[in-house]
């Protein structure tokens, strides 16, 4: 067994079914229309929110309302619709800023997703400020989106990629990380929460250690922003990136937060409409951030949807959501580990509600296909984290990622489906 994998133990105390406590999960489930559907004749159990979360009625209605009654282009019309929708669109920037406690909405760049946000930083900040021999520190548990852009920069500019290791629980090895900050390191780009292991890294400490040496830090918050309160000022992050579709919002919209002084020094990412101040054939001048980085018609309807998603999450309260998910994670972990032959990956303290595992002797695809037959949607494979799979010593895992709308009864359904997988394949 690989060192990080935890062997299945004997059944432990089985959590009761009232763990939801004051958090009214059934009420919340009613807000998500898709959760009432069936798959293969069974109620849908959606444990794939880490890939993309389902959307509450508030998001669907907000987007529909724009399309039915308010739609036009933004930033460029003298007419009523354009002015009112521009106000709403720019208002979302303020909502996003509030959601992560950014000092100003002008530090919120709207992108297509996290991947584009990281590529934007690599292509602008990276190209301008990083050169041959400069080091960029990432971790073993990065998503490919936070590896490949830096590798492309390595191939183009000759920078060096330095990888901070994890320990056997899946926690970041802070001492090894700190050691990598010496010498040529000029940027840290690290996940705030592993999409495979659920590990929450000590982000504030990571930033502090880097800042002690004058090194800026980009945090990939794709998973963290869904499971915890994020305060970019408290973290003192230089860049913070995340995507809308994992945060109960629509796809095709993401966010790059940057410190004002950094954004101001960065050249444009793409050229086109909206990002310019003036264009002649002789000379073009650019807008100030954030619009400098938003060429072309932006994701207008998606922005309205993301704003609605953030309002929805804020109204429930991130602390209440996190508490519910923590209880659910505890229950699911206990039930999972009570099953024979389960190898769980990622047991770092304070982890988010993500369970990566394999059933020993059964291929993860066979496990996941059996779960699907029972209506349980999970992800299987390498989870866009192939280097981490190498560290774990496996070709892939099954990943159940839990969200605010999941229940203990759904965990029980997954456990029964795992028993069926053992019958079919064991």
């Amino acid at each position, binding site marked *: 067994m690989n060192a990080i994998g935890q062997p299945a133990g004997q059944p432990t105390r089985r959590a009761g079914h009232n763990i939801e406590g004051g958090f009214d999960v059934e009420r919340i489930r009613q807000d998500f229309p898709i959760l009432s559907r069936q798959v*293969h004749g069974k109620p849908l159990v959606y444990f794939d929110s880490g890939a993309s979360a389902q959307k509450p009625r508030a998001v669907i209605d907000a987007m529909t309302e724009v399309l039915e009654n308010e739609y036009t282009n933004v930033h460029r019309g003298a007419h009523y619709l354009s002015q009112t929708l521009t106000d709403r669109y720019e208002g979302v920037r303020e909502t996003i800023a509030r959601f992560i406690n950014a000092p100003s909405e002008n530090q919120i760049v709207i992108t297509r997703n996290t991947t584009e946000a990281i590529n934007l930083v690599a292509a602008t900040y990276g190209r301008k400020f990083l050169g041959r021999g400069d080091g960029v520190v990432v971790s073993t548990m990065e998503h490919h989106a936070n590896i490949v852009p830096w590798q492309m920069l390595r191939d183009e500019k000759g920078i060096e990629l330095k990888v901070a290791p994890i320990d056997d629980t899946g926690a970041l090895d802070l001492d090894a990380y700190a050691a990598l900050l010496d010498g040529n390191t000029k940027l840290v780009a690290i996940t705030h929460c592993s999409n495979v292991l659920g590990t929450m890294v000590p982000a504030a400490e990571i930033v502090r250690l880097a800042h002690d040496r004058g090194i800026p830090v980009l945090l990939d918050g794709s998973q963290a922003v869904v499971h915890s309160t994020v305060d970019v000022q408290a973290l003192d992050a230089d860049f913070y990136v995340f995507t809308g579709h994992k945060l109960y919002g629509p796809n095709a919209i993401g966010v790059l937060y940057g410190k004002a002084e950094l954004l101001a020094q960065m050249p444009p990412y793409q050229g086109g409409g909206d990002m310019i101040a003036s264009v002649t054939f002789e000379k073009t001048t650019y807008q100030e951030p954030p619009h400098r980085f938003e060429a072309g018609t932006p994701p207008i309807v998606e922005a309205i949807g993301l704003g609605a998603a953030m309002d929805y999450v804020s109204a429930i309260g991130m602390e209440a959501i996190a508490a519910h998910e923590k209880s659910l994670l505890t229950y699911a972990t206990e039930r999972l580990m009570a099953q024979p032959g389960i190898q769980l990956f990622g047991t770092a303290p304070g982890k988010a509600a993500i369970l990566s595992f394999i059933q020993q002797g059964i*291929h*993860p*695809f*066979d496990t*996941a*296909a059996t779960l699907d*037959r029972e209506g349980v949607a999970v992800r*299987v*494979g*390498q989870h866009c984290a*192939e280097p981490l799979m190498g560290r774990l010593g496996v*070709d*892939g895992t099954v990943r159940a990622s839990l969200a605010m709308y999941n229940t203990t009864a759904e965990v029980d359904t997954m456990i029964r489906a795992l028993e069926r997988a053992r019958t*079919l*394949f064991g």
Partner: protein
Amino acid sequence: MTIAAEKLAQYDEYVEALEILDEESRFEYIIDIGKRADKTAFPAECMDDAHLMHGCMSKVWIIHSRENDRSIFRGQSDAIIVKGLVSMMTGSFSGLTSGELAEVTLDHVRGLNLGALTMQRQVGMMAMLKHMQKLSLQAERAEAAD
């Protein structure tokens, strides 16, 4: 060109077997085929990168040989269900020339009525078909060049 009916006898057998089954039974049928295929020797030395179809959910290896202009395929996977799928594909479409194989289409694969497994990225049956067509064509061109 059309493919002679007798050349698709194994395919037709799968189609007939699957069409009388409900969705749940089809799932178990594929598993049975995968388990049976598991007992058939697949050369271990061929489970290498040269014979690997790249996919992130499971691994699929396909070996191709030619007998009198006809392509013979054998498949393997590390997942039982995928082993069942690749076994159905190699069993259904072995014995065809590359020209005949090129005429096998998405409709044939859909005819097996396996729903989501038909088009699933990377380990899907259409991806397997395209890979088999490519192997057949490559071998034919290599032979012609000799």
